[in-house]
Structures are given as structure tokens and as C-alpha cells.
């Protein structure tokens, strides 16, 4: 990726600096004044890839208390696509592919770029919205997930596998509030790789292509500054939260009574 040419016209720079002084450009006013508004090269510090109104990939500071991630890693987009295509989620109609094929084809390039750009202190947030079922007239649903690289591979924590927000947004301009997966608390999603459950219902480790895996394994691992809660350690709080979420889904009519009872049994078995 080429870097943008710095502006070479002092007058133009000064004019833009004045235009952008203060809050207009989101830069501290003092900095704009002190430096003559020296431009920040966004392309060298790109932290967001926007693909559609509700599809974007973003680098954010990793969650507090989490160990250093093993990024950056270089991944081939096609290899990443093949791995992500194996992901499945448990939905109303049973187990289904998490990503649509055309959705994935579009995501993997920017996702590979993000993982190459990310540092050990970054997590990658993924928001992907697509019309996955029912064609053009079906309301789009969103996947919200957090990704990072650790020794086991690419870690993927999905909060929502099919977040339904679009109709309320279109009908009443209700702005969606997206919540991404978290190491600390399990979300409502249930995902697996080729039918094999992950370390948590919403969390799977995806094997990296060999070159990337070797690089990740060679990287020094850092222990977390404080231990993160594990699946077992979360105990009743986590289960209570998931039961409440499940109950809410049933009350909203988003899942059937049978689905509610089946999922409830699954959750209670974890006690």
C-alpha cells in the first residue's frame, strides 16, 4: 500500500490547518496550532476498513487484562477464507455456516490486512452485515466478533451470529448498538468449527496456515497482568446471564418454545 504524498503547498496546508483547527477535525486545537496542522498519514495508521454501512473491520486496544497478542501475522486471504468457511453457528434452523460465501470473499482481504497491521496490543473487531437468508428482500443480519492471534491460532469470539437490527433501523431510525465478543464474558452465540465445539460456546480457535502459525508460536508469550476468568470460573454468573438472554429472545418471539427449552437444557448442563 502506497503512502499518500505529503502536501507540498505551505499555503494550502495553512488554510487546511485553519479550517481544521479545534474540534472540526477531531484534533486537539493546540496541536493544530503548534505544528501548523502537520497532516496525519491515515494510510500508514489505518485502523478501520469500512466495506458497507454496517460492515467494517476495526483495530481497537485489546481488552484490559488480556495477554499480548501474537500479531502482526501475515495470512493469505484464500487460506483464511477456507478456515473461516468451516465455521458454523447454532441458529433457529439448526447448524448453519456462520458466513455466507460471498460475504466471506469480501471480508478476508481486509481482515488479513488488519491482522497484518495489528500489534500485540490490538484486538480486531468485526462487524459484518449481510442478507444471508431469503435473498434481496430479507433483512440483513449482523455478525459481531472479536479476533486476535494466540498460540492456538486465530481466536474468534462471536457475540452475535445473527443480530437483527435492520428493520427497526429502517422503520424508525433506531440506531443499533453492536456488542462484540469478549474474553471475559460469554455472549449468546454458539459456534463451532466443522461441528467441533470451541473452548467456549461463543469462542473458537482457528488453525493458522503453517507459516503464520510458526511465526505466532515463535513469538514470546506474555502472561496476562491479571488472570482472565475462564469458562469454569465464570460459573453461575455467566449461566444466569445466558439464561436471561435466552428468556428475552423467547419473549420477543425470536425463538420458539422448543428452541428455548432445548437451549435452556444445554446451558444448565454446564452447571
Amino acid at each position, binding site marked *: *500500500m*502506497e503512502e*499518500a504524498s505529503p502536501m507540498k503547498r505551505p499555503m494550502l496546508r495553512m488554510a*487546511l*490547518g485553519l479550517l*481544521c483547527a479545534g*474540534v*472540526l*477535525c*477531531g*484534533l486537539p486545537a493546540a496541536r493544530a496550532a503548534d505544528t501548523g*496542522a502537520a*497532516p*496525519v*498519514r*491515515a*494510510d*500508514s*495508521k*489505518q485502523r*478501520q*476498513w*469500512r*466495506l*458497507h*454501512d454496517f460492515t*467494517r473491520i476495526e483495530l481497537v486496544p485489546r481488552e484490559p487484562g488480556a495477554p499480548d497478542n501474537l500479531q502482526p501475522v501475515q495470512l493469505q486471504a484464500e487460506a483464511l477464507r477456507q478456515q473461516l468457511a468451516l465455521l458454523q453457528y447454532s441458529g433457529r434452523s439448526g447448524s448453519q455456516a456462520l458466513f455466507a460465501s*460471498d*460475504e466471506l*470473499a*469480501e471480508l478476508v482481504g*481486509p481482515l488479513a490486512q488488519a491482522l497484518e497491521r495489528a500489534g500485540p496490543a490490538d484486538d480486531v473487531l468485526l462487524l459484518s452485515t*449481510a442478507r444471508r437468508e*431469503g435473498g*434481496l*428482500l*430479507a*433483512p440483513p443480519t449482523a455478525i459481531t466478533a472479536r479476533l486476535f492471534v494466540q498460540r492456538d491460532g486465530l481466536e474468534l469470539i462471536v457475540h452475535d451470529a445473527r443480530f437483527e437490527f435492520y*428493520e*427497526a433501523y*429502517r*422503520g*424508525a*431510525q*433506531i440506531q443499533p*448498538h453492536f456488542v462484540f465478543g469478549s474474553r471475559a464474558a460469554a455472549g449468546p452465540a454458539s459456534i463451532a468449527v466443522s461441528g467441533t465445539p470451541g473452548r467456549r460456546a461463543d469462542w473458537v480457535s482457528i488453525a493458522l496456515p503453517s507459516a503464520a502459525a510458526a511465526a505466532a508460536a515463535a513469538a514470546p508469550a506474555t502472561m496476562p497482568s491479571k488472570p482472565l476468568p475462564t469458562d469454569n470460573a465464570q460459573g453461575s454468573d455467566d449461566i444466569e446471564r445466558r439464561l436471561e438472554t435466552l428468556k*428475552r429472545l423467547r*419473549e*420477543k*418471539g425470536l425463538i420458539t418454545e422448543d428452541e428455548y427449552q432445548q437451549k435452556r437444557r444445554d446451558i444448565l448442563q454446564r452447571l
Partner: protein
Amino acid sequence: MKTIRSAVPHALALAAALVASQAQAVDFDGYLRTGPGATSKDSARACYNLGSLGGGHYRLGNECDFYGEFGLAQTGTTEGVAWKAKVMFNEYNGGTDVGGSSSSFEQMYVEGKGFDIAPGTNFWIGKRFYGRKDVHILDTFFVRMDGVGAGADQIDLGGAKLGVAYFSSDSFKGFGDPGNGASKSPGNRFNVDVSEIGLNPGGALRVTGTVTQGNYDNVTAGKGTSGFGLSLQHTQDIASLGGGNTLWLQYAQGSAGLDGNFGTANAESSVKKVRLVESLAWQVGEFGGQAVALIGQQDKDDINATAKFKELSIGGRASYALTKNFKLVGELGYMQKKPDGSDTQKLTKFTFAPTLSAGPGFWSRPELRLYVTTAKWNEAANTASGLGGLTGLGNGKTSGTSYGAQAEIWF
């Protein structure tokens, strides 16, 4: 217009081709409502509304027009800049007959975020819908800064977002502006929009300021009139109801509108308007709906020969899903307007609509609905509407019933 009309089918074909070949590459969104209806023998279909009210009308089973809008957008990130270009065309007909409809490009703009001089700011230029927030059952946007303009938004204030925009209009209108250069009443508008101000858990405040300036000589007032508006909007998520609440307190004077757009072009600055709107939406199990209450007042406008008036509107629409795909929908609304020196105009309207839908939710679309609408109003409402009376049928009646079928979809 001929050119545009002929362009629409081509644009649709292009859209279909793009969407078919690159499902994720081009975004295609839209809205339409259409369907037949009737009121009585030997007359056109009637709809029921008090004229000149800013608060809209109760729309279920009460739309005599048909309308559709179809948008294409391309979004992508290049060299760190996230670009989006969007066009949207529409089709409108005041009745349901063929012919006499109009098409136009409602939106045509480009925006970008991630520029090196201001990475966090979104810049845009063009013709667009902007900052909209509505009450669906009234078909009214209570904030609507649409127009031809340029601006910057998503500016992080640390706990809030700032947007600033400038709009210019050849005919002092913000929406459907022909922009043909023939008008002699152009106007300028400047909006400041501060949003996402966190006030309380689940609640956010939005403050929208509007300044308008007529750039022309008004024959009556002597010059283009100026205006000012301020809108406060508070939105509140209510998880227990599966919905939320929106409250507006709005003020405008002169040529500014309450919704943040241009108002009446030549209204003197002494003409003041104020409006309070409360709207609640919910979805609890199979029971969903939206309710609204509105009170407003507008001063006497000498130049446009309108008396001071007060308005009131209260009503709601509720749906109950009997199955996943079948719901019963009803809407009840009451409106009144009291001009100084005249009797109070009153209208009550009720609609029952068995509806087929993609899902059980209130907002679930598409919907295929049959409806029966009945309305009652008073003589003052007929008188205020002119010779044709409130329905335009000119039969002197103060009640009526309409029926029909309508499809509505947004996607």
C-alpha cells in the same frame, strides 16, 4: 423529466445486474408502498387528514398515493480513506392510476472518512437525506435536514458527536427542490447537530440548531427573511418493552422549520413555532406498536395570511401476531387544529388491517395488508379544507369509510 423516467428502468436493470453479479459489492436498499382502494360509488378513494398540520397524518389505510425509493451505494476503503457514493431515485403518484407520476434523484452524494488532515471526520458533498428521525405512523420526520449541501460530521467531542452542514437551495426548499435556477427566492441554511450526548443509562440527547437566510428580495417584506431553529431530541432505550422512547421539544422562527430544514420562505422573523412530541415504540412478545402525542403552536403569519393556531395529535398503531406470518393491526388517531378566530377542526380515524408479514414483529416487512378505515370529522374541518371538504369529494359529509389493500416494504 422524460430523460429521468427513461433512466429509471435502466438504473434498475443496472442495479439488478450489479447485485446479481457482486452480491456484496453494491448495496441496494429501498422502500415502497402501493395498492388499490376505494371509498364509495362514483367517487375517488378518500383519505383523511387535517390540512396544514406539521404533525403529519395517521397513515395506516390512509394513503391515497403510491411511492417508492430505490438506492444504490458503493462503499470501500482506499488508501485508508473510507468512501461511500450513493444515488437514490424515487417514483411518486398522488393517486393509484397510471400516468401523472414523477421521478427524481432524491439522493446523489459522496462522503469520505479517514483523510490525513482529519482522520476521524466524515466529509460529504451532494444531495441527500440527512439527520432524519421520524415517527413512522405519522409519516413525518421530526428532524430532517435533507437538501443539497456540504458538511462534516462524526466529529468526536469526547462524549458526543458533532456535525456541521451548509445547504443552499434555489427555491428555498429542502426536499424535492427542483433546483432549476428559475426561482427568485433562493436560500442558505446552516445546521449544527450535536448528538449522542449521554445523559442517563440508555438515554441520549441530540441538539440540532438551524439558521436560515433568504437570499432574495421579498416583494412584501422587502428582503429575504432570516430564521432560527432549535430542536432537542431525547431517545431512551427501554429494554423491558423491547423498544424505546423519543421526545422532541422544538422551536423555530422566521424562515426556519421545526425539523431543521427551511420552513416558510418569506415568513417574518416574528413568526414563531413550537412543538412538543412524545413517541413510544414497543415489542413485547407478539404485541408491538408505536404511539405518539403531539402539541404545537404557530404564530400569526401576516405575509402568508395564516392565523395563529394550536394543534394537537394523539394516537397509536398496535399489532398482534397470531402466527409468525399473520398479524392483526389497528390504528387509532385523533387530530385537532384551533386557528384564532375560527372553530376547532377535529378528526378521528380508525383502521383495522389483517396483515401478512415476513415476521411477527411490528417493524417486520414486507407487509401485505387489507384494510378498512373509518373516519369522523366536523364541519369546521370541512370548511377549512375548501370547497371539496376534508376528503376533497365535495359531498359535505362529515364521516367516511375507505377500504383497500396495500403492500409496504423496506429493504
